Structure formats: structure tokens, C-alpha cells
């Protein structure tokens, strides 16, 4: 129980008749990098606002290291947050913003902060009002990583970063995990999620529809199988898990979901020259999930 960095129990948020988050029950153990995915409007940011105590749940509860999320004076000592859309006080420079956040927070590793400023190539003398979206995001990222807080809550933290900075971001997340920090990462950048996350939760229309490791998700999802054959085409009709069969002059392609045994037995009956199975990318997996929402 106490080793959960973050835990929610039937966490629900309603705005009038709209249910933004519907009975979310989730457990993120300490030390894990957890990816939080879902289409726009699925309730990801609402979840994060509830975890941070910026909004109050309509029902259900959330805990950060066993402390109720509403007790922000305690929970925020152990977490750092990067909002999706970073707004800074325009009259402060980047250095002043970092100073304000360092001194009003629970402590900061100044040496590591200086290193991060170098790595993210941040010009701290400029006023925040003149920063681009990406630079504002970098200020928030540097401030958050430099706290060395046991829990990092990151809401779309790389949406404004260039590919070079994205690499730095992944490096910082890995360094955080190596140090034992927990990372809760909400993102549309599936490459980021695939690169750094241990486990992934998928939210759709306010409901959590899947929580699994990236490898498990792959197993659950469609692989693309390509077969070349000589002679008669293999007969794959009514084989469980097979979908979208297409034949094309000695080549057969189909999508396979679940265990491959039944399909392989049918293929064995034909004269197969070659066989390749491509695992789905995370992107394809999520398009599957998102696509279901549209149906």
C-alpha cells in the first residue's frame, strides 16, 4: 500500500452533466515510469488536476505516497509537475522563474539544475514574456527535474520541443528512473512513451480501458503476417484471430490477433515459401483503441 507512488480509487469528476473522468482506479508503484495515453478530451489532464489537488473529485479519492491528494502542502513536497500548457509570469526572466520555483518548493539540486539548463540550451536572461512555447516548457521541465522529487507528473511535456530536446527529455526521464523516481507521463508522443515507459494506461471517454506493459499490449494486438507460397493459396477462412486477408499473386497478408497456433496449422497445410510477422507499433495499437471510440 505505502509503496504506491500514486493511487486512485473510483476517482470521478463531473462537470455538470459531463463526466470527464469515470471511476478511475489506478495504482502506480514507486519507481515506475507510467505512460498515460488517450485521445484529446479523454480525461488525462482532468486526472492530473485531481492528482495535484488543483481540482476536487466529485467522488472517489486519490493518494500521493499514501497522503490524500487534497492535502497539497504535504503531497506537493514529494512531487514536481510540468503542465501541458506552461504559462509563466511574463515580467520574470527564466532565471528568476527558476529561483521563485526553487525557493517556494521543497528544495532543489542546484548543480543538477545548472546541468539541465546547459543540456536544454536555455537562455535564462530573457523575460518569460518573450519565450516561445518550447522555451516555456523547458523552464518547467528544468524546474521539475531539478527538484529530484520522488514523483514527477508530466502532462504532455514534449509537445513544443524539437527532436534534439526530446532526446534530452528522454535522457532526463531515464536518469530519474535510475535514481528511483516515479514518473507519470501523459503524452501523445507515442515514441516517447515507447522509449521510456514501463507500463501504459489507456483512457477513453473518461474510462480506463487498458493497463499493461508495452510488451503485453503488443501481444494483445494485431500483428501483420505476410506469407509467400507456391501452389494453392492457404485457406484461412473462419480461423480465430485472423482478419483482413488479402491475396496478391503468391503473397498473402493478414492481421493476426492473439495466439498464432490455429493460423499456423492452416498455413502448414499449404506450401509456404516464406513467413514474416511484424509486431504492431505502439501507434497502431493506439489507433486501434482510438478507432474504437469513433465507432
Amino acid at each position, binding site marked *: 500500500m505505502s509503496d504506491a507512488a500514486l493511487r486512485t480509487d473510483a476517482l470521478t469528476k463531473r462537470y455538470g452533466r459531463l463526466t470527464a473522468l469515470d471511476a478511475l482506479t489506478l495504482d502506480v508503484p514507486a519507481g515506475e515510469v507510467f505512460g498515460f495515453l488517450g485521445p484529446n478530451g479523454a480525461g488525462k489532464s482532468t486526472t492530473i*488536476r485531481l492528482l*495535484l489537488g*488543483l*481540482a*476536487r473529485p466529485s467522488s472517489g479519492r486519490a493518494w500521493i505516497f499514501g497522503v490524500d491528494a487534497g492535502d*497539497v*502542502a*504535504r*503531497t*506537493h*513536497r514529494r*512531487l*514536481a*509537475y510540468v*503542465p501541458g*500548457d*506552461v*504559462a*509563466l*509570469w*511574463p*515580467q520574470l*526572466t527564466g*532565471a*528568476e522563474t527558476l*529561483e*521563485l*520555483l526553487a*525557493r*517556494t*518548493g*521543497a528544495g532543489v539540486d542546484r548543480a543538477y539544475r545548472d546541468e539541465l539548463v546547459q543540456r536544454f540550451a536555455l*537562455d*535564462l*536572461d*530573457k*523575460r518569460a*514574456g*518573450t519565450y516561445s512555447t518550447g522555451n516555456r516548457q523547458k523552464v*518547467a521541465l528544468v*524546474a521539475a527535474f531539478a527538484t529530484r522529487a520522488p514523483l514527477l507528473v508530466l502532462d504532455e511535456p514534449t509537445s513544443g520541443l524539437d527532436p534534439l530536446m526530446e532526446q534530452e527529455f528522454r535522457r532526463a526521464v531515464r536518469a530519474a528512473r535510475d535514481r528511483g523516481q516515479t514518473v507519470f507521463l501523459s503524452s501523445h508522443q507515442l515514441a516517447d512513451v515507447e522509449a521510456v515507459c514501463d507500463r501504459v494506461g489507456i483512457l477513453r471517454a473518461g474510462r480506463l480501458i487498458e493497463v499493461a506493459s508495452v510488451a503485453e499490449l503488443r501481444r494483445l494486438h494485431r500483428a501483420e503476417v505476410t506469407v509467400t507460397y507456391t501452389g494453392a493459396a492457404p485457406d484461412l477462412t473462419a480461423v480465430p484471430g485472423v482478419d483482413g486477408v488479402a491475396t496478391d499473386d503468391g503473397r498473402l497478408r493478414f492481421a493476426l490477433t492473439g495466439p498464432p497456433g490455429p493460423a499456423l496449422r492452416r498455413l502448414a497445410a499449404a506450401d509456404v515459401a516464406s513467413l514474416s510477422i511484424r509486431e504492431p507499433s505502439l501507434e497502431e495499437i493506439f489507433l486501434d483503441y482510438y478507432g474504437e471510440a469513433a465507432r
Partner: protein
Amino acid sequence: MSAGTLTPRLADVPSTAPAPERALSRLAVRLVARGAAIVVAVAAGMSAIVVTSYDSLMADSAAAGSLGALAANPAIRTLFGEPFALDTAGGFTVWRTGTVVAVLIAVWAILAATRITRGEEDAGRWDLLLAGPVPLRTAVAAHLRVVGAVPVLLTVALWAAMAATGAGAGGAAVHAAGVGMAGLFFAGVAALAAQIQPTRAAAVGSAVAVLGVGLLARMIGDGVAALDWLRWTTPFGLLELSRPYAGNRAGPLLLLAAATVVVWATALAVAGRRDVRGGLRAPAAGRPPRTRLLGSVEAFAVRRALRPVGAWSLGIGAYFLLIGLIATTMTDFLADNPAFADAAGAAGFAGLTSVEGYAATLFAVLAVPVGLYAADRVSTFAGAEADRRLTLLAAQPITRRRLVGAEVAAVTAGVVVLTTVAGVAMWSGVVVTGGGLGFAAAVSGVWNTLPIALLSAGAAVLALGWFPRLTGGVGAVPAAGGFLLQVIAESAGAPPWLINLSPYAHLAPVPLASPNLTAAAAMVILAVALTVVGVAGFARRDLRV
């Protein structure tokens, strides 16, 4: 047919095609409609009420004559302007309300013009708009047109209100046209400042500075005979020189109209030459960090308040210094002419024969700007929440109570500073001119008004906690709304219970009399209660994003 066609417009359609501009204008109307309606209603209503109350005020012919003599005094002229035709309802109304109405529409025009142009733009809401076929200059022009329509509306409403209540249509036309023109002029000044300055705040600051200097020039021109030419340099002076009901001179208004055309044309010309989200004047590229007052949310609240407190102190201090400088002339004149003092009493300026009485009368007005300062600061805090600047601080290990408590403390401190500045400025002015006003008397006089300003702060915090969108408006109710209520209700002879709703009705004339401690305590307790309920609301509600 072309208006109704569904085919997309081709690139060769001129960018000034009317449809996008109409859409822009409709957007601008939505942004200003409510405030504009209030300003027009208050200006027209206030003037109509003074016109209708004129007969009862002037029923005593001796009082009427004395009022004329009083109005000729340089000190009174400095404050209210040179009076003309006080023997007509229209002339009296122009003298009593002209400056107030002109300042009201000018301030509204400045705030509206900067808000719906640079404010919307700096917030990023124009990026999408300007990605369409509409160039920046057209967007600015479409919005300014709507702001400019409001002083024109005001002119019509003011003329109709005064003419309908029997003030004479000719003079009303000159007065209303002048006031409307002043509104147009300041809308243009604000628009020009918004094209030049790097930020919206700087634009508002420089436009308000023009207004302040203009008002001051009119006051000096009225108070010092040798400098009366100064009145030709300021919109407020030109309004006075147009002499509604006493000659109805068109020359000064034509001059003001010409100046307005120049300002508007310059603003639109400059609008075509600057970058979106930036003025002609570029902001400084960078500076070394200043880490003073960043150590806690309380310190940071003070840091953010320093600049506004400085600016408001300058305005309030300058006004009360001027009042102090003329205090001795004013009271000596009245002491030598007891009949005038009685007349002044009848006209609502009681106790003016002593410096204490004079100070007490003018200190009562102090709660209006100080209360508005408090409402504005709390409203700025609500704005920081709405545009998510507050989010990173709210994610720190700081309770919401402490976050808003720090702001309340900084606002309260600012209120005390501004109030004290007024007292010290007045005292300095009196002492320099050899008058007799004790420092303690001046300070107790200004502090006597603190409860009203604190009521405004409390009302604003209450709104912040429960109806955050209304923070500024609700905050202005006790200090500004209460003042208007008292002035209008007294002029109209309203029943006492209505007048007593205004906190100003419970203000003792300190330092002339001793303070009404019961009323002061009641107001402070109410202010604290409003604040506590507001803080509780802020602590439990969702943060807006």
C-alpha cells in the same frame, strides 16, 4: 448572391472584403457591450438626475447667487473647472458632472481599446484570426471602430437625457458632443499607445498618464490665471472652453476633433508597421536576474505589487498634493465670506471654512481610487489564475489558503500605503503654503477612509472565491458603486434607507470631527467576513484553467 454563396472566397478578393470585417466587428461588440452599456447608462443617468434636482437646489435664490461666487474662487475652479451659466439647469449640470463624465468615458475607452486589441492579441487569441485573410491593421481598425462607436452612443444618450429633462437642447448638444469627442480622443490615444508599447500594461500606463497630465493641465489652467492658455492643450480644457449653455462655442470642439483624427490616423498607420504581439518599441533582450522578493509566495505577492503601488501612489499623491497646495487660499476665502460658506454647505460642501473641514470633505473621495486599486489587484490575481500563470505556484507545497492569503496581505498593505500617501501629500501641500494641518490630523483623516477601501478588497476576494469572473466588478461595488449611489441618491433626494446603503453615508468628516468608530468597526468586520468567505471558496473550488 455573393454574400450567400457557399464557394470559398478566392485569393483575388480584396483583403478588406466586408464579410471578415463584419465578423471581427461582431466579435468586438461582444467583448465591450456590457461595460459600454453601464458607462453610457451611468453618464446619462447621472446627468439627468442633476438636471432634475436643479430646481429644488436653486429654489433659494440667495443660495444660487452665493454658489456663483463660490464657484469663482480659484481653488474651487481648480477642482471643478470654470463655471458658466450656473443660473441654468444645464450649465450647473455641466459644471457638476462634466469632468466626471468625461473622465469616466475616457478611462473606459482607454481600458476597452487596449483590452480588445493588444490584450486579446497578447493572450494569443488573435493568432488564428490573423492567419486568415485579415491583416493586422484591418483587425485593429475593426475593433477600434466598435470602441469608437460607444462615445458616439454616449453623445446621443447624454444629449437625449439632458434635453428630455429640460436642460435645453442646444447646450446639451455642445456638452454631449464634447464629452463624446473626449472619449474618441482617448480611445485613439490608447490605440496608438497599444501600437507603440511592447506590452498591454505599458500601453495602458502611458494612455492613463496622458489622461492624468491632461486633467492636471486643465486644473492648473483653471487655478492660475497666467497659465489659462494651458486649457487649449488638453481635451478637458477644450470641453470647458466650448462653454455649453454660455455661448456654445464650436472652435474648441473642432480643435479636439482635429486632434482626434490625427491620433486615430497615426494609430492605424502604425498598426500596419508593427509585429503581431509586439509594439514598435522592442522589449529589452535580456537582463541579469533580480532575485529580491522571490523567496516565498508572500514576498512574490509584494514584488508584483511594487510597480502598481508606485504608479497609483504617483497619481493619488499628485492629486492630494495639489489639493493641499490650494487648501489655504480656499479656506481663507471662505472664512472671510461666511455667506459663501453657508452657501457651500447648502451645495453639499459643509465645513469648508477650516482646513480640517476642507481636508475631511476631500479625503472622503480617497476611498474611490484606493478601493478600485484593491479590486484591480484581486482581479489581476484572478486573471493570473485564468491564464494559468498561477498553476506552477499552485503545484508547489503551498496551500490555496496561503496562496490567496499572501495576495490579500499584499493588497491590504498596498491599500494602507496608498491611503497614507494621500494624507502625507495633502499635509505636505498645506504645510508648504503655510497652512495649519497637523500631520496626525491628516493621517487620521485618510485612515478614516480605510474601512471602505477594505470593503472593496473583501468584496473582490469574495467574488474570487465564488464567482471569479466577476472579481473586478464586485470589488468596485463598495468603493465606486457606494460613492455613485450616495451622490445620485442625495442629488435626487432619495429616502434615507437608500442613502444609508452606501458606506460613505457612515463616514465621519475626520479630522473635522472624531471618527465614527462603530461604523468603522462594523465595516472592517464585514470586510474581514467577506475575505474569510472568499478565501474559503478559493480554497475549496477547482482552479480555473
